């Protein structure tokens, strides 16, 4: 965990609502599944966004414009600086991947799986990635996961691109373990459709993002956890779904 001032190297749209933001000046290496918390002028609370990639001091996040804060962020230019808390949360545990891990990402749940895929590929593991979106215009990341050497399937709910349906309609026959991130209905479907252990990354409204406010607490089989601190990644076996 570190508080740093990062400089915007580039900030450009990948789709009509998803932007890629490259920041320079990162002082600590982020683990796959961790997130950063960005302060924006005129907004009291920071915006937590998962880490997409890191290369030296260049830290990359992909974010979706969903409100006034992220829209303001999307208008920021190269050379401007941001006050950022980095290295937040507990990331994915790569040690459990087994011989042929599966990555399941939905929408803006895809980005945290990229750094994970990169590190799994660096261990020379065969990685399958299923990336789910609503429709063709929202698809991103396919080429980037392919470049890493992943076996990639894209699904769209309306069938306008790739396989019609959800990520759970495109599960491979064999996989050793899975890692997933996406909207909660997708995570619930993944929970039911998978037949191995796996890790889930959750989203929650946060106050601080570093464990102080208890704003993002959840109940698990292994006790109360903070999504921002003990999470955002939880093991399949410890999840207690809220009704």
């Amino acid at each position: 965990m570190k508080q740093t001032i990062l400089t915007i190297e580039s900030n450009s749209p990948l789709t009509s609502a998803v932007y890629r933001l490259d920041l320079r000046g990162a002082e600590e290496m982020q683990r796959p599944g961790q997130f950063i918390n960005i302060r924006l002028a005129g907004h009291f609370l920071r915006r937590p966004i998962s880490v997409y990639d890191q290369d030296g001091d260049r830290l990359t996040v992909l974010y979706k414009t969903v409100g006034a804060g992220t829209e303001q962020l999307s208008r920021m230019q190269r050379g401007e600086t941001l006050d950022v808390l980095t290295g937040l949360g507990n990331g994915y545990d790569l040690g459990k991947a087994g011989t042929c891990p599966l990555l399941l990402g939905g929408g803006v749940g895809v980005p945290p799986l990229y750094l994970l895929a990169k590190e799994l590929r660096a261990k020379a593991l065969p990685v399958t990635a299923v990336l789910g979106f609503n429709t063709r215009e929202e698809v991103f990341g396919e080429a980037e996961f392919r470049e890493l050497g992943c076996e990639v399937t894209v699904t769209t709910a309306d069938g306008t691109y790739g396989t019609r349906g959800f990520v759970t309609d495109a599960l491979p026959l064999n996989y050793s373990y899975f890692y997933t991130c996406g909207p909660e209905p997708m995570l619930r479907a993944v929970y039911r459709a998978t037949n191995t252990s796996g890790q889930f990354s959750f989203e929650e409204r946060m106050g601080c993002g570093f464990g102080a406010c208890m704003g993002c607490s959840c109940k698990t089989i292994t006790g109360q956890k903070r999504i921002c601190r003990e999470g955002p990644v939880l093991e399949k076996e410890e999840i207690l779904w809220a009704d």
Partner: protein
Amino acid sequence: MGRLSTTLLGIELDNPVIPASGTFGFGWEFAQWYDINCLGTFSFKGTTKDPRFGNPTPRIAECASGMINAVGLQNPGVDQVIREELPKLAKVFRKKVMANVSGFSVADYAAACERLDQEEQVGWLEVNISCPNVHGGGMSFGTDPAAAAEVTRAVKKVTRKPVIMKLSPNVTDITAIARACEEAGADGISLINTLQGMRINLRTRQPVLANVMGGVSGPAVFPVALRMVWQTARAVRIPVIGMGGITTAEDVLEMMMAGAVACEVGAANLVDPCACKRIIDDLPAAMDKYGIRNLSELRIR
């Protein structure tokens, strides 16, 4: 005594900056951000007799210049706080800590305070009376002078440590509650707790918070807090701790000019984990700017 030092109910503080309850956990996790011994003290997470999970999520909403929380007093209960949290704190903090206590009945408050009275690390008890009284129709203890006085008396009976009553601002006349606490034996007053508020999500047309309503904090409430501290400091003779939306050294000076002997800093810690250290570091320059030699000269008595 340094320029920043102040005395809080018989205990010398190096400076008047106190992270507020609910924004600083049990302190030890903040030692990852800075050496927390630079603080005057801090008020730990609101603790109840029994463990509480708190409210369902979402528990947090944002507003202009502030935030709204409905955490619902999540805490591990007083026994676990004493068994696990205080020993972890002792490893990184060598000063007295302020124990913040909540309850849902007079007996709950007394039970938790009696346990904490035994703890050497605890310098003061800060009693949060913004909780609903389950035996009183669910109305907050802090909105009724008689109920506030009853809690004060019950707590004073079980402890020899200084008792600070933390007031709710969601009342018609804050000075009536403050005077009732003073008459019932309170050693000090802290205020303000959060103001009740809410937000609605325009897309879903539903309240943002699962609990519908929550407590507003942050710079948005500073003028309200300042006004109530001013009124209260002139209505009672016991020391007053000011809090509500403080984010800068200048805010601390303003709050002390209103009559506070010390200041708690809450929401700012959640946005800037080093907020209190920054405020302490900025205080001498801010005092120079306004011709203040020692903070003690700002005391109104």
